[in-house]
């Protein structure tokens, strides 16, 4: 087993384009859950809307798209995320917290079913998704798209660097935005809604409107994550937005610490790093002669060895939430919310 190679792969994945999407998703969840106390379990749905917004609007007309520019496509994804937030928020935000959880998890799964359905093949490409819409995005790249840039042991393609540059700039922007918003009177209202909704209402604040604004803002952050990921892959695939995607974003947020600006960022880097490490480890191990010739392992386990990281990460999330719900940086009193 090549440990130094494994280390390099892990570190470059932890700050790479895929980690960026989970960090953006987690930043959105931080607004929802961390600051406002909303239980959004459907962040994958917001990400999907962002990804398919840019894919449908900027794919060429031959490919079934509308043929507009990429930037307009990203904008369309954001508008769609706002609409989705309104659709889910209007019926649920006045009810107990777990209703929002149920509606969001159902909505994100339904969105995935709709975009992968053969019925909407003409629009979303069904199972195989939409590809080849990000060319103008990579044309704007100041780096050489196909050149390998070396930083010590780390190597990045020019196109990856471009996605990472944009991605981390957006993360920094959303981080700053969150920091400023949460210091503002608006952010104080959000945090007081999390602590005691009735008290806020009795002070004459329109709680539902504030919750809706928070839902929209966090959803848009997730949608940007989805859009950047779709641009990076030059492909929007329905099964990139399964419930697990929400789970990884939540795990990142909780690990870093909810209701902290840096929580989702640090948590995302560490959690995705662990995830990438385990995935690479499984790939390494399952390539060894020892693994291939292990007769005590049923062949189906060998075929599905890629699931091992999820077994451990699911257990890790459970233990994390039970024993250290505040994560690395959080405050326990801020994150132990009841379902309101």
């Amino acid at each position, binding site marked *: 087993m090549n440990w130094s190679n494994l280390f390099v792969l892990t570190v470059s994945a932890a700050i790479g384009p895929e980690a960026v999407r989970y960090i953006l998703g987690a930043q959105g969840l931080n607004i929802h859950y961390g600051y406002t106390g909303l239980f959004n*379990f459907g962040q994958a749905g917001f990400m999907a809307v962002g990804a398919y917004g840019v894919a449908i609007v900027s794919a060429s007309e031959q490919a079934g798209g509308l043929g507009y520019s990429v930037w307009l496509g990203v904008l369309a994804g954001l508008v769609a995320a706002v609409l989705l937030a309104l659709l889910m928020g209007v019926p649920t935000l006045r009810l107990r917290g*777990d209703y929002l*959880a*149920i509606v969001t998890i159902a909505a994100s799964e339904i969105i995935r079913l709709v975009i992968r359905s053969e019925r909407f093949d003409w629009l979303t490409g069904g199972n195989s998704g939409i590809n080849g819409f990000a060319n103008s995005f990579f044309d704007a790249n100041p780096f050489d798209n196909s050149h390998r840039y070396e930083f010590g042991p780390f190597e990045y393609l020019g196109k990856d660097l471009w996605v990472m540059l944009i991605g981390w700039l957006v993360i920094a922007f959303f981080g700053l935005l969150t920091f400023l918003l949460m210091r503002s009177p608006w952010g104080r209202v959000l945090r007081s809604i999390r602590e005691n909704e009735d008290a806020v209402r009795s002070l004459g604040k329109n709680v539902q409107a504030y919750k809706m604004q928070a839902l929209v803002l966090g959803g848009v952050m997730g949608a940007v994550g989805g859009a950047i990921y779709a641009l990076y892959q030059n492909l929007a695939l329905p099964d990139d937005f399964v419930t697990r995607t929400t789970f990884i974003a939540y795990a990142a947020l909780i690990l870093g610490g909810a209701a902290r600006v840096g929580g989702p960022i640090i948590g995302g880097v560490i959690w995705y790093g662990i995830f990438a490490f385990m995935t690479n480890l499984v790939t390494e191990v399952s390539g060894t002669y020892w693994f291939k010739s292990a007769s005590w392992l049923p062949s189906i*386990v060998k075929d599905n060895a890629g*699931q091992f990281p999820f077994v451990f990460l699911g257990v890790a999330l459970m233990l994390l939430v039970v024993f250290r719900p505040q994560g690395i940086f959080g405050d326990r009193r801020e994150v132990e919310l*009841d379902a*309101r």
Partner: protein
Amino acid sequence: MGLTRRLVTVCTLLIVGLGCWSGLASAQGGEAIAGTFLNREDGNKPVAGVKVDVVDSSGKKVGTAVSDDSGKYSLDLPGPGTYTAKLQVGSLPKGVRLTDTKKTQLTVEVSEGRRRAIIFPFGKGIAGPAGALDRLPGTLLDGVRLGLIIAMTAIGLSLIYGTTQFTNFAHGEMVTFGALVTWFLNHDGGLPVLWSALIAVALSAVAGLVLDAGLWGPLRKRKTSPFSLMVVSFGLSITLIAVYQLFFGTRNRPFTEYAIQKPLFSLGSQNVPPRAIVTIVLSVVVLGAVGLFLQRARFGKAMRAVADNGPLAASSGINTARVVRLVWMMGSALAGLGGVLYSLDQGVNFLEGQSLLLLMFAGITLGGLGTSFGAAAGCFILGVAIQLSTLVNFSETFRVPPSLKNVGALVVLIVVLMVRPQGVFGRRERVG
């Protein structure tokens, strides 16, 4: 920590348990192609003496199967692979003709240890897809079956919510658990489906007990916040799905029995196999028994009391912890049974519970979160409704293909929450 130890024990048990079953998989073999020839034109009478040649992917002939008096044929294959079945048109009895005369051969992929059904339909074909009116009775029956199954699986979810105020996102995995255990016992263990199902339902109850005693009970004692509980159940669901996929794979696989059945009768354009009727009758009996239990039995009354007002029930001398434990066992057993019944028709899939969970949530919301009868009724109505929605076929732009029928559930969910958030049978105060 006692909790950590118990958590580890639960996980080990689950993994070891599943490992044992798949360990049985070493005794493989038994690949076959089989089927039944029925003449649609002649009241589904079996067609005997039809010859089918089977060739493998390299074009080498494996053998020829001949259908017997009941129209059945089967041919054992040398191993997994791609096979083509060719119908010897000359061997057809007089007056019997293929529905699609051009379709005299079919290619299928046969995986390890599996019997694949190849059926050549006989008799005059129906021109194009059947009309909505023709499909109505059959679809209604399917809807009744689906609705009953969702209702059965949702009772546990609803009772658990009612007694502990906990939304369990891992409940769908109990459904899959029942189906998977049955599949492994039946397919790898060689037990009949009936016995496998009984054992699987018992094991589901045990799994519910273990989960409550080892995980949820201690978490309740720690006064873990409801949000944390939801995330824990989320994590549990992710873990279980990954474990299921590790040992079962992603393919949809049927039980060895009842997958191919001679239709009992036809409803409109649809044939009704006996398993559909058995499923419906069994579901009605089980749901009736659960209803009687909740209404009449001491423990059932205690369950409703705890669901209604936990502290009051506790102060009137009801042992709340024991009631909750029983709720977990009963709910998990019902979920497991629901999974078996669902898979009888649809085959076993490692994600089936997750897709049913969405329907359960929608049905429970429709009926009223926290009520047991309301939830069951809501789920039944929802199942029938989404199955009937597949009949909508007015034009190319306005139709609901089967892959989209679950979307109707979300529409129901959102409309109910907007119009009457407490559900049809719920009470206002629960909404909070």
